[in-house]
């Protein structure tokens, strides 16, 4: 394209995302300045809130766990050229699977119940994501629109199920019965007192395993190869004999199953019951996490941690600087999606020119030759 040469890999993978994210934070800082607060002081409070003491650190890890699942879900679909905006609804429906099994096997030791809960959550959430996948593969309806619609349908359906069916008689707020203590996914603070009774639980390790699993799936299996081929060029994939329809459906189901694990962390772990609207935007944060991490598991892990820090630090910030509400984090999230997702080409050109200039100063002859050729 237009006489520039391909950038070195590290620029593409590390430098550009870092620059884009930095830009998002600079603008976020300007917004903080606009309401009369000191952005540097805000960052200091955030970091302290996220890492400074055991209680904060525990919550940071708890949020990170959710964001890894949500980010991986978006990332897996993205490799196949699919944009799954439905994580929010899928995780919500996954909560139904988790609670039904957890209540049904109530009294079973958690080590035995956990796999069952995971399977149920994955099945419910995966099915919820499979529907848009099926609709796109078989009926040609765009997955973006259908996943948005499915989010709303999930909200209405779950609100009915929780408030009318699952809610026990003696409870006033809209929530299910509680999971038996022995069945509930245990908090890490049972073994590590430093974490001070925070909701971070065994799911953190499931999330880390999921990162590795997705890496293997995408880059070291036949399925992953086909998925990436479809993502780069669907027509080429079809000519190479791959079934796009099957790939789309399987990918969406996997994506849904991944974000369904949020239910294991929250419903079966942190809350110990199914709450109305429990997902609370986690599915959407996944979009920012996936883009920031360039849909690579290492990147997803790091950006999930960053958003975990932002969320927990944001709580501390809202407490210390009343002018800064938690919604500042949503704003940052929006800027991250904007700059790393939609405007990622904005900084590419200047960086390309900078590299051209640097190289022509170093090796003027070769660049001239390349230009002639």
């Amino acid at each position, binding site marked *: 394209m237009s006489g520039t040469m391909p950038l070195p890999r590290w620029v593409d993978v590390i430098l550009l995302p870092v620059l884009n994210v930095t830009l998002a934070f600079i603008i976020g800082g300007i917004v903080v300045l606009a309401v009369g607060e000191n952005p540097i002081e805000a960052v200091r409070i955030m970091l302290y809130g996220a890492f400074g003491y055991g209680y904060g650190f525990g919550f940071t890890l708890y949020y990170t766990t959710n964001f890894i699942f949500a980010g991986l879900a978006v990332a897996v679909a993205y490799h196949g050229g699919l944009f799954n905006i439905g994580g929010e609804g899928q995780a919500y429906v996954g909560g139904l699977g988790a609670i039904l099994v957890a209540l049904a096997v109530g009294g079973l030791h958690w080590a035995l119940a956990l796999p069952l809960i995971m399977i149920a959550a994955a099945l419910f959430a995966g099915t919820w994501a499979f529907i848009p996948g099926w609709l796109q593969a078989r009926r040609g*309806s765009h997955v973006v*629109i*259908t996943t948005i619609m499915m989010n709303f349908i999930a909200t209405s359906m779950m609100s009915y199920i929780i408030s009318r069916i699952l809610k026990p008689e003696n409870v006033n707020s809209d929530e299910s019965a509680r999971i038996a203590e022995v069945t509930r996914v245990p908090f890490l603070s049972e073994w590590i007192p430093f974490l001070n009774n925070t909701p971070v639980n065994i799911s953190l390790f499931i999330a880390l395993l999921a990162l590795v699993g997705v890496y293997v799936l995408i880059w070291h299996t036949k399925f992953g190869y086909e998925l990436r081929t479809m993502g780069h060029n669907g027509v080429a994939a079809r000519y190479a004999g791959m079934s796009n329809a099957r790939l789309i459906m399987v990918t969406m189901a996997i994506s849904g199953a991944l974000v369904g694990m949020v239910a294991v962390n929250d419903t079966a772990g942190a809350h110990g019951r199914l709450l109305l609207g429990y997902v609370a935007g986690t599915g959407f944060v996944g979009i920012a996490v996936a883009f920031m991490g360039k849909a690579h598991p290492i990147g997803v892990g790091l950006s999930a941690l960053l958003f975990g820090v932002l969320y927990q630090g944001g709580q501390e910030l809202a407490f210390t600087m009343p002018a800064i509400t938690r919604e500042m984090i949503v704003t940052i999230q929006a800027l991250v999606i904007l700059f790393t997702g939609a405007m990622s080409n904005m900084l590419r050109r200047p960086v390309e020119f900078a590299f051209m200039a640097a190289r022509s100063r170093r090796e003027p002859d070769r660049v001239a030759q390349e230009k002639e050729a």
Partner: protein
Amino acid sequence: MEDLISVLITTIRVSTPLILACLAGLYSERSGIVDIGLEGKLLGSAFGAAVVAALTGNAWLGLLAGVGVSLVFSAIHGLASINFRGNQIISGVALNFLASGLTVFLGGAWFGRGGNTPPLSGDARFYGIQLPFAQELAGVPVIGPIYSGLLSGHSILTYIAFLAVPVTAWVLWRTRFGLRLRAVGENPKALDTAGMSVSWLRYKALAITAVLVGMGGAYLSTAQAASFSREMSSGRGYIALAALIFAKWKPYPALGACLLFGFLEALQYRLQGVRLPVIGEVPTQAMQALPYVLTILLLAGFVGRAIAPKASGQPYVKER
């Protein structure tokens, strides 16, 4: 009769922002730019309108501010999807988050009411307009309730919304701009070859989008409600998008789809707690989900096929 009239009045009231947002989306998507950001634009403009109306005490200045906010959002969307050839869907999603975060953040910092703006009253609000002879005709049977009850007494923005439908149809099918707009969404290369600027046309379409959806947002906070409250657009941008698909990107069917979705919403308020024969009590949640279910069925081709403008969603790359 009176029940029906009152449901229909509510239908018109709740359809107004849908119609404005839906027509807004029509201009954008006809030009080849997918606009998932309608929701964010509605929310952002509702906030802008409420803030300025509260500060100046003038609803018209509020309206202007609302449109201004959605123009800024459209400019960002255009920059990302036209100039930088970014993914339009991602850009739209980002705008929705930006609106959701910024409105509550700034609202909280400026007014300290948990993201809400101060209540609006007097000149800071758009009130219903009495059509001529509405008072006199109120007593006449049949015509009375329909004219004075149903058609009269809405805010100016509602009349603009309904007027915008025939105007859009005329622009789309009877003007040179409309022809080009339809062409740039179907085959931008043809326009480029004919020496017209694809980018400029798309920016113009996005500007019209912003004006319409900005009015829709201003309606929410200065006409329907008397202040801005957090997440007050509550999915209407997405419903408008669904209606647009339902209408197959045509103005009159868009009006029909918005009225249908509005009617469902009005019916839902009406039916709360009411037992119907045979079905029993209809859960509100089922009514809320209905427009989305219908849209999915439509998209799947079970109730006819919806085919979007061909170039929509794809950035245009000039040949070099």
